[in-house]
């Protein structure tokens, strides 16, 4: 209690210096917290975009399909799919059929990636379809309606309503061609997608492939990514009885590009945070050491009067601790305010970069929002406290080694 009071008064001796240091520590903490929350929000958003355009938070395949992408590895949608859709936390189950194909117009032909999907189910979720006008999506799908990537449509000279031919090789090695209508143009902004994607009704595509009513993938979209931990085992459970031995795969495995991009990005965030915290530590050491060096006589006097070196050390460390507590509280307040702002208003990068950003093969908007990560904020705050305490260790030792005979001589 006494040393708390003494420490507090000592910090107030150089009010300006203490305030500047505390402000520096607080702002650094706020920066690290806010930056983390912002990137957490961005990653969550990227995962969300990624999983909706890609294979869902959890995807179901036949064994080996992910490795080979062999069109023969299809399976028939089964009643289990509906079971999966009823697992709490599952928002949608989207069956898809993938087939390499050739598209021909009167002008050109191109290799394409033909995706058979349940378009009405995808409509509200798939970011590729999101930009299409409502009337295009709401009109009931006809069997031979297709959505075509913008670049591909341009190259083939296709417009809304144009007809074109899609040719595929069926399971027996025969070529099968069918006529399709261009119903809508997909502008994803991702070059690969825009120049090669054609999305049509799944039953139609799988029938062309001679697979009947089949699917390669069940993309399971969750209400939010954090539910994967509970949904994943439930999905597995329901797949146990499937005759094809279907496997559930997390998005991290199904979309390694996105996963790795996020992981590497997160490493850089951590590294930056580490540097900020290291600089903070140096600042605190500097302030405390300066204040200790100015007070060597006082420490000499204290020791002369019979205080133990441990007590002197404790005093200096209490000063560090107090600075840590104040910085922790102030910094967390600032960090929370900044996060709250970024959660609600978001951070608009659009003036600086093109409207859409590509990251790990996923496209997302440049208006980005933060996401609360309170346990982590508390962890960094606690870390700041430890840093301040750690930073006071050496100054404390210096103070406790004051030599009374030396410091009290020549005054």
């Amino acid at each position: 209690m006494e040393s708390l009071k003494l420490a507090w008064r000592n910090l107030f001796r150089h009010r300006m210096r203490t305030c500047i240091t505390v402000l520096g520590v607080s702002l650094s903490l706020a920066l690290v917290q806010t930056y983390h929350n912002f990137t957490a929000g961005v990653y969550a958003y990227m995962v969300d975009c990624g999983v909706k355009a890609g294979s869902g938070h959890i995807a179901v395949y036949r064994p080996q399909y992910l490795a080979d992408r062999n069109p023969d590895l299809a399976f028939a949608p089964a009643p289990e799919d509906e079971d999966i859709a009823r697992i709490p936390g599952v928002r949608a189950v989207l069956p898809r059929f993938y087939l390499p194909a050739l598209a021909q117009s009167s002008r050109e032909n191109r290799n394409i990636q033909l995706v058979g999907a349940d378009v009405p189910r995808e409509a509200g979720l798939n970011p590729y379809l999101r930009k299409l006008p409502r009337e295009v999506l709401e009109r009931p799908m006809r069997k031979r309606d297709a959505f075509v990537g913008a670049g591909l449509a341009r190259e083939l000279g296709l417009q809304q309503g144009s007809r074109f031919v899609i040719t595929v090789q069926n399971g027996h090695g025969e070529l099968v061609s069918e006529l399709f209508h261009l119903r809508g143009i997909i502008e994803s902004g991702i070059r690969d997608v825009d120049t090669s994607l054609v999305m049509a009704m799944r039953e139609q595509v799988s029938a062309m492939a001679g697979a009947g009513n089949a699917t390669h993938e069940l993309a399971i979209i969750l209400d939010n990514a954090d539910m994967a931990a509970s949904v994943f085992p439930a999905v597995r459970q329901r797949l146990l009885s499937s005759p094809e031995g279907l496997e559930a795969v997390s998005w991290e495995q199904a979309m390694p590009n996105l996963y790795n991009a996020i992981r590497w990005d997160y490493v850089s965030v951590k590294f930056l945070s580490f540097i900020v915290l290291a600089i903070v530590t140096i600042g605190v050491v500097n302030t405390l050491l300066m204040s200790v060096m100015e007070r060597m006589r006082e420490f000499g006097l204290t020791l002369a009067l019979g205080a133990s070196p441990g007590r002197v050390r404790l005093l200096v460390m209490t000063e560090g601790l107090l600075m840590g507590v104040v910085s922790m509280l102030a910094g967390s307040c600032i960090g929370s305010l900044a996060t709250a702002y970024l959660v609600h208003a978001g951070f608009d990068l659009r003036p600086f970069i093109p409207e859409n950003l590509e990251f790990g093969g996923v496209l997302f908007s440049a208006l980005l929002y933060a996401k609360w990560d309170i346990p982590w904020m508390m962890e960094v705050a606690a870390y700041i406290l430890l840093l301040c305490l750690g930073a006071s260790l050496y100054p404390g030792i210096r103070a406790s080694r004051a030599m009374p005979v030396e410091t009290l001589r020549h005054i």
Partner: protein
Amino acid sequence: MTLIELNNITKRYMSGNQSVTAIAGLDLAVRTGEFVVLAGPSGSGKTSVLNLIGGLDRPSSGTMTVAGCQTDMATDRELADFRLNMVGFIFQSYNLIPVLTAAENAEFVLQLQGIPAPIRHARVTELFAELGMEGLQNRRPGDLSGGQQQRVAIIRAIASEPALVLADEATANLDSKSSTDLLEMMRYLNETKGTTFVFSSHDPLVIEQARRVVTLHDGRMVSDTGSRA
């Protein structure tokens, strides 16, 4: 009863790579209740002797016992305990901790000794009154005159009722009125409470007041008026 006993004490300091002999074979005995002044010119070794007696430093050779503690043999820890419990110190200046009030400074040693706050307050309040310092308890050292600061230092030194009080040039920074007052105060405490005082000075006015004067020169005792107690 002999309180302080120095036998053939020498103290050498290393100054650069040169050895300086501050005390050269000093024998000194002081009994409980004495009021001794160490006199002598600057550099004669007064501070060195007081530092040794107070357990702030150890002799280079010789043996010594102070208040039952053989301080030449003691460890750092033992010396710290010895200082805390046996000795009251008054230094020439910079005696007080600036962020503490006069009363808190005066209580500082008691606090280190772990005396409960109410007892500390009571004892220090009484001493403030006894030494004519009422009303100054809550001032910070910066708001006290030099003489008042030294009185606070005296209160701190005697509050724990140590076996002896050491004062190194405690009056050197004071005007003659304040020095006389301070000295009278020490005399008064010596007479009423029987506290042993050993202090150093080269002020003739101060030396005149002492019952026993030990004069040093170049680290040797050149005269000792002897114990008149």
